[in-house]
């Protein structure tokens, strides 16, 4: 059975399940076994939720046999980043050694919504400690060890902070996973692990029950084998939640129609690929050639504004408040990465007036970028400036300003949706990605163009040979 289901998109698995050709119990057992056997190779799993998964799968099977099919996620296993609270004495560790035994007595809304759609929680997935809020600069920044990409023969980093979510999907350990992004934490692992990752608009998915890193930057979103699946999962997760007043009341309905063939209007911020690795730049330019088949491409200039400084200031200020008590308690000294033990102190010096100044400029940026989307459906750029770095040693961090990430700064600062999909490989066989970023609440547009791109290319269908067999 394994050969039939590994790396198959949710859309295909769901068809088999709804036609009663595939048993949810067998499906879940297949992925549980894979998570157990292969998860340690990628440092991808914190907790296997076997009992809960089997109960849910049995329930799904009973319902489907009775004709009560709930929809495309019914009976589909998934993993959740270990910053989403889960009840039932399942630890929620936030990736941090001093919190290994932390438990909650409720489930995060994102998980409640997915389970209501019939999806089966099978594992809590590894993540960078405190979602990278202490300024880590090496892959080995979690008590589970460095996240390992399924590409690169065990030597390449999965990316962070949703490290386990990226590698679990990339290694075929789950059909989809949930991650979160404050700045780069979905798009980065999607890039490094060769999968599709969607960062929704801020407020599209409830943050209730998720570890708060930055209240005005945190977004929860899916990592899947293709863009289409991201839309399916987002529809189930999204929605207003009284427990998170920042959630939008606008209902999200995934639009699967490609509509009449038309040209997308694609903008590229001038010099957006400047300073990227050779393979990243080369693959990005190749992608643009493909995109010319479905759209018009224009280079654009944005007004001079301190985009990266604004998002970084907000990130450091809010993270310092989120973890002030943690730092004061001295628990930060028990974190895995040495730099995380002292990395939280500098942010404590951000003055209130500077944080508020950043929020005032954020308003200007939001208007400037929204105006830009009057003329373009999406802005496009490389997902990351480099391929996955080695699991040992330091990497260039965009959070610490070691690398430029203008689209990440704008997209996260203004709360805009973006999707990263694979667009090729480096000479060493490491994946690269391309991102499509859209106007606030325009997830359907970014998914639509990513789907169109994936219909022209096959990069999302490449999987590590030894894992696909």
């Amino acid at each position, binding site marked *: 059975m394994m050969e039939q289901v590994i790396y198959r998109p949710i859309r295909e698995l769901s068809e088999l399940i709804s036609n009663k050709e595939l048993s949810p119990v067998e499906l879940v057992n297949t992925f549980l076994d894979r998570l157990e056997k292969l998860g340690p190779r990628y440092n991808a799993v914190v907790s296997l939720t076997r009992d809960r998964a089997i109960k849910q799968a049995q329930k799904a099977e009973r319902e489907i046999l009775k004709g009560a099919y709930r929809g495309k996620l019914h009976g589909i296993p998934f993993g959740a980043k270990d910053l989403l609270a889960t009840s039932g004495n399942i630890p929620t560790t936030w990736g941090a050694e001093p919190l290994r035994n932390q438990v909650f007595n409720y489930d995060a809304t994102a998980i409640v919504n997915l389970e209501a759609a019939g999806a089966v929680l099978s594992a809590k997935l590894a993540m960078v400690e405190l979602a990278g809020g202490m300024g880590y600069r090496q892959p080995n920044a979690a008590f589970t060890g460095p996240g390992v990409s399924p590409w690169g023969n065990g030597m390449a980093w999965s990316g962070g902070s949703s490290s386990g979510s990226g590698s679990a999907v990339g290694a075929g350990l789950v059909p989809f996973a949930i991650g979160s992004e404050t700045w780069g934490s979905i798009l980065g692992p999607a890039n490094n692990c060769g999968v599709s990752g969607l960062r929704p608009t801020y407020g599209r998915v409830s943050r209730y029950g998720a570890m708060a890193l930055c209240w005005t930057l945190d977004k929860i979103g899916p990592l899947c084998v293709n863009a289409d699946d991201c839309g399916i999962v987002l529809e189930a997760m999204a929605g207003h939640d009284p427990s998170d*007043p920042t959630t939008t009341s606008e209902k999200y309905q995934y639009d699967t129609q490609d509509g009449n063939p038309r040209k997308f209007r694609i903008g590229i911020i001038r010099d957006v690929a400047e300073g990227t690795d050779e393979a990243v730049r080369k693959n990005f330019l190749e992608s643009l050639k493909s995109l010319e088949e479905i759209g018009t491409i224009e280079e654009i200039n944005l007004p001079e504004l301190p985009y990266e400084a604004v998002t970084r200031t907000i990130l*450091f200020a809010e993270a310092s408040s989120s973890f002030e008590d943690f730092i004061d308690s001295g628990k930060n000294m028990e974190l895995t990465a040495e730099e995380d033990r002292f990395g939280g102190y500098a942010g404590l010096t951000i003055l209130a007036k500077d944080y508020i100044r950043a929020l005032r400029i954020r308003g200007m940026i939001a208007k400037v970028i929204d105006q830009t989307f009057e003329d373009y459906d999406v802005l496009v750029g490389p997902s990351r400036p480099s391929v996955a770095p080695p699991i040992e040693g330091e990497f260039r961090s965009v959070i610490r300003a070691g690398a430029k990430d203008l689209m990440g700064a704008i997209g996260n600062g203004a709360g805009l949706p973006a999707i990263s999909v694979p667009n090729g490989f480096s000479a060493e066989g490491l994946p690269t990605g391309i991102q499509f970023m859209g106007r606030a609440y325009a997830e359907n547009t970014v998914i639509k163009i990513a789907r169109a791109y994936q219909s022209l290319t096959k990069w999302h269908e490449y999987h590590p040979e030894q894992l696909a067999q």
Partner: protein
Amino acid sequence: MGAFNSNDLFSMIKASYGMRLSDDELEEVRDGVKRITELTDALRSVQLENRDEPMYWFKPYTRKELE
């Protein structure tokens, strides 16, 4: 005049947490504080008007509305 420089801010951290940190770690913190002040200096390149409000709105709370 009136602005804190990175040494002032570093001294505040050193006074509160210095006992926990080695000399090398304190130097890392000093660098981190310097980077923070560079960030906030960059924010001052933008001329703001009095009417430019922070993008963070306060909304009076009632349980009724949330329900």
